């Protein structure tokens, strides 16, 4: 594995930076077209209702209205998973949650579109609803969809229970028998929203001939293309999707919500259609993550060795079948080397918006339960929480709780760094508690395409297919520069549209720097091979006698020929005469992404009279394999930690008895603001991933996993009472005190 880097580990400016600090960068809602219409969506005011009829005639008659659609305008599709996505975009037959789309209009102005919505008459028959996961699992609960109950599930759970998973090994009963202390606890966590600041937005233009253009804010424009092509029954080749700059996603933009609607309105009206969600719509109808109800039981010896561990996870994922609890069940005990372990999970439907991924989906709440119980055991047995975790920590060769045997991993290094950090030994003030927790995420590889052109002036253009959600164009340019041996500033990386470069999986799973990085290195190697070939031709020596060193071709030794190195720029300059343009490309599906562990340390102060919690100090340790651009790696760690802090303290979807969402706005859905926080101190640990030529691991998701438990453990220690539910809002803490 390469170790001596010239570019990796430096902190150059990102290529899209200037446009973003000057307001020039174009996000989803920033593009317009000549003759464009404005669309709006009518949404269900009920948690669950049969749609008896929709009368759109008055809306259609309003001057300026060019198209009105309902669920009837969408023909059925083959895949049931695509059907769920389609029916989430536009209800067919029943409205399944507060905010579910039931009709849409396109009109000459926003004002006319809004007026038209008021004229659509929907006749609803209200049906019983359920929004709580435990209630939804009870036999007799209102069932969202019949016939989708998970395989092998019995009569003890309702038809809302769409999946069951279990993982683990050993004999947990035997393990609990060997324990000196066993603690079993129940936890609840609220649904949270990804909370990206940019609402979903798109500009669609689809002709009657099935040729279309779509501009949208997404984590994956190929995913958008394929879903929309399937839903609209058009050819993928005919729909060109361009990813706008994306104003945050965190998993929430890994599906479609509005794009098929805008395309359908455009197809009917024959005009470009712009559709932008309001913030209220974002909360009511775009992907929150799951809420959960969790039981964790862990046995430990007096010395702190875990003898057995068992978790039961019940996740609520909204109004359609989904598969996500397995990610939590696999993550729950991943940090520990356990002989006897079992984790079980149930996916459950309710009358809430369809869940979608949120940064390490499924893991934070599972790990919250586990790390809470471990912390309580440490307190009860008088053990140091880091030493205890070190005693049980997973390391190279550990058979993980979800099956695979770990390769080189950095959990022990992260725990040791935490133990040695001044934060861990700093004195604590009154009413303050120090919490610690580990976290884990798998990280993925997946399909990727990169195309690289060497220009005659010695510069390089690179096209890749993954929307840049947090600076990846910079890290990809850096890896290209490192591989080619030229300066970072000589490379321009852009995110191509679906017609300009091959398929790429969604920007998710902390995969982009890893997977696009590998493809970039391979594309560079292909270009290098061609450049060596050109040099060999010029020198009239054998191609194999040329090697690439520091951005130049050179003979492999004196025997090969005595020529001074020929730089990339020189080879490029003559390329027109030596065989034409030089390029490199790579399409592949790299795997071996390499898991990542983090350890978070937090000091929280609780006001004993009000229950107000403030974060006084926060240090986050994470193994990232190799930090390409350390500033953006730090940013991922800091951002993930703060999202986790929000989840721990204040963020929650609040439903009333009526099944309606009570807080669809940033006023009462309380994400952390600048004044809520101290600096977040990131500590980068680099245990190289053997599966990547530069040692890269994904780093984006792990950081949201530990903070829920770290903050809860800190609060519990500060107030001397255990907390068992998130968010730990002030009324809840005060009640516990």
């Amino acid at each position, binding site marked *: 594995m390469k170790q001596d880097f010239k570019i990796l580990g430096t902190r150059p400016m990102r290529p899209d930076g200037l446009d973003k600090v000057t*307001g020039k960068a174009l996000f989803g809602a*920033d593009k317009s077209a000549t003759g464009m219409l404005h669309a709006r969506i009518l949404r269900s005011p009920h948690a669950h209702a049969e749609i008896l009829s929709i009368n759109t005639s008055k809306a259609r008659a309003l001057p300026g209205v060019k198209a009105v659609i309902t669920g009837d305008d969408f023909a059925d599709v083959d895949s049931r998973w695509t059907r769920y996505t389609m029916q989430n975009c536009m209800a067919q037959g029943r409205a399944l949650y507060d905010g579910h789309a039931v009709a849409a209009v396109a009109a000459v102005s926003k004002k006319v579109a809004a007026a038209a919505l008021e004229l659509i008459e929907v006749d609803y028959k209200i049906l019983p609803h359920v929004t709580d996961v435990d209630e939804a699992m009870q036999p007799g609960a209102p069932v969202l969809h019949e016939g989708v109950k998970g395989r092998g599930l019995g009569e003890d759970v309702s038809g809302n229970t769409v999946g069951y998973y279990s993982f683990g090994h050993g004999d947990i009963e035997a393990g609990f028998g060997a324990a000196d202390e066993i603690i079993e606890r129940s936890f609840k966590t609220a649904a949270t929203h*990804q909370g990206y600041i940019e609402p979903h937005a798109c500009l669609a233009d689809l002709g009657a001939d099935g040729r279309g253009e779509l501009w949208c804010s997404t984590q994956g424009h190929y995913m958008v293309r394929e879903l929309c092509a399937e839903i609209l029954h058009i050819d993928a080749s005919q729909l060109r999707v361009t990813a706008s700059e994306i104003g945050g996603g965190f998993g929430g933009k890994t599906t479609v919500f509005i794009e098929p609607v805008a395309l359908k309105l455009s197809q009917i009206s024959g005009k470009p259609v712009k559709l932008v969600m309001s913030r209220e719509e974002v909360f009511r109808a775009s992907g929150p993550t799951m809420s959960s109800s969790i039981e964790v039981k862990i046995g430990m010896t007096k010395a702190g060795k875990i003898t057995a561990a068992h978790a039961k996870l019940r996740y609520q994922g909204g109004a359609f079948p989904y598969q996500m609890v397995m990610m939590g069940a696999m993550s729950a005990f991943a940090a520990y080397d356990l002989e006897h372990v079992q984790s079980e999970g149930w996916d459950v439907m309710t009358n809430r918006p369809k869940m979608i991924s949120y940064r390490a989906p499924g893991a934070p709440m599972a790990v919250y339960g586990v790390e809470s119980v471990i912390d309580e055991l440490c307190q009860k047995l008088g053990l140091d929480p880091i030493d205890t975790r070190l005693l049980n920590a997973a390391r190279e060769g550990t058979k993980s709780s979800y099956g695979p045997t770990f390769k080189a991993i950095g959990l022990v290094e992260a725990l040791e760094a935490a133990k040695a950090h001044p934060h861990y030994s700093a004195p604590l003030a009154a009413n303050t508690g120090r919490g610690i927790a580990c976290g884990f995420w798998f990280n993925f590889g997946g399909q990727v395409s990169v195309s690289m052109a060497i220009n005659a002036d010695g510069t390089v253009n690179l096209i890749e297919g993954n929307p840049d959600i947090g600076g990846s164009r910079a890290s990809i340019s850096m890896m290209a520069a490192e591989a080619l041996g030229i300066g970072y500033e000589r490379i321009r990386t852009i995110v191509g549209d679906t017609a300009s470069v091959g398929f790429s999986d969604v920007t998710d799973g902390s995969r982009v720097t890893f997977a696009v990085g590998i493809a970039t290195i391979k594309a560079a190697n292909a270009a290098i091979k061609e450049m060596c070939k050109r040099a060999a031709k010029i020198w009239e020596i054998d191609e194999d006698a040329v090697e690439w060193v520091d951005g130049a071709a050179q003979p492999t030794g004196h025997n090969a020929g005595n020529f001074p190195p020929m730089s990339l720029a020189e080879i490029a300059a003559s390329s027109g005469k030596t065989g034409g343009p030089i390029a490199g490309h790579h399409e592949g599906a790299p795997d071996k992404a390499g898991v990542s562990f983090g350890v978070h340390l937090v000091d929280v102060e609780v006001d004993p009279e009000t229950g107000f919690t403030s974060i006084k100090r926060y240090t986050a340790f994470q193994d990232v394999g190799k930090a390409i651009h350390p500033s953006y790696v730090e940013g991922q760690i800091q951002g993930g930690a703060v999202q986790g802090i929000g989840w721990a303290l204040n963020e929650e979807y609040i439903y009333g008895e009526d099944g309606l969402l009570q807080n669809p706005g*940033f006023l009462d859905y309380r994400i952390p603001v*600048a004044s809520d*926080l101290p600096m977040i101190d990131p500590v980068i640990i680099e245990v190289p991933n053997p599966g990547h030529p530069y040692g890269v691991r994904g780093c984006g998701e792990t950081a949201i996993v530990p903070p829920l438990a770290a903050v809860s453990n800190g609060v519990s220690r500060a107030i001397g009472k255990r907390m068992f539910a998130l968010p730990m809002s002030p009324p809840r803490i005060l009640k516990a005190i």
Partner: protein
Amino acid sequence: MSKIHISTRINGDEVEYLCEPSETLLDVLRDRLNLTGAKEGCGTGDCGACSVMLDGRLVCSCLVLGAEVEGSAIETVEGVGTLDALHPVQRHILEHAALQCGICTPGIVVAAKALLEKNADPSESEIRYWLAGNLCRCTGYDKIIRAVQAAAAEMRGAQI
């Protein structure tokens, strides 16, 4: 209902437009004047992505009517910095990697510049409270605060 004719000054230039009485300044900037630097993250004054300066005050342009700025002076992110020189706040945001997705960045730039014009040496706490109305979901604010501190230090140095 007739539209209202407005003459105002935006980023130093005289601008005239017609707007509906109910249109916000943000709508006018984005939809009529093609100044899309100010973003609509919420439309209710909770996120600060639409921050602009109105007659020397930092405001959310989503909570200002297009019809009420007759004779005013407005500065948007497009008016911050010059072609050959970024404002120190902009430059330090870039140098400190104080953005990830960048959707909140225009609002942060406008708000932070306003702070430093009022207070050349703000404490960390003052910066955090001043920017509390500018939501950022990516960064955890750390690098933003550091960038503003660095810009403040540079600007103080430049004044000596």
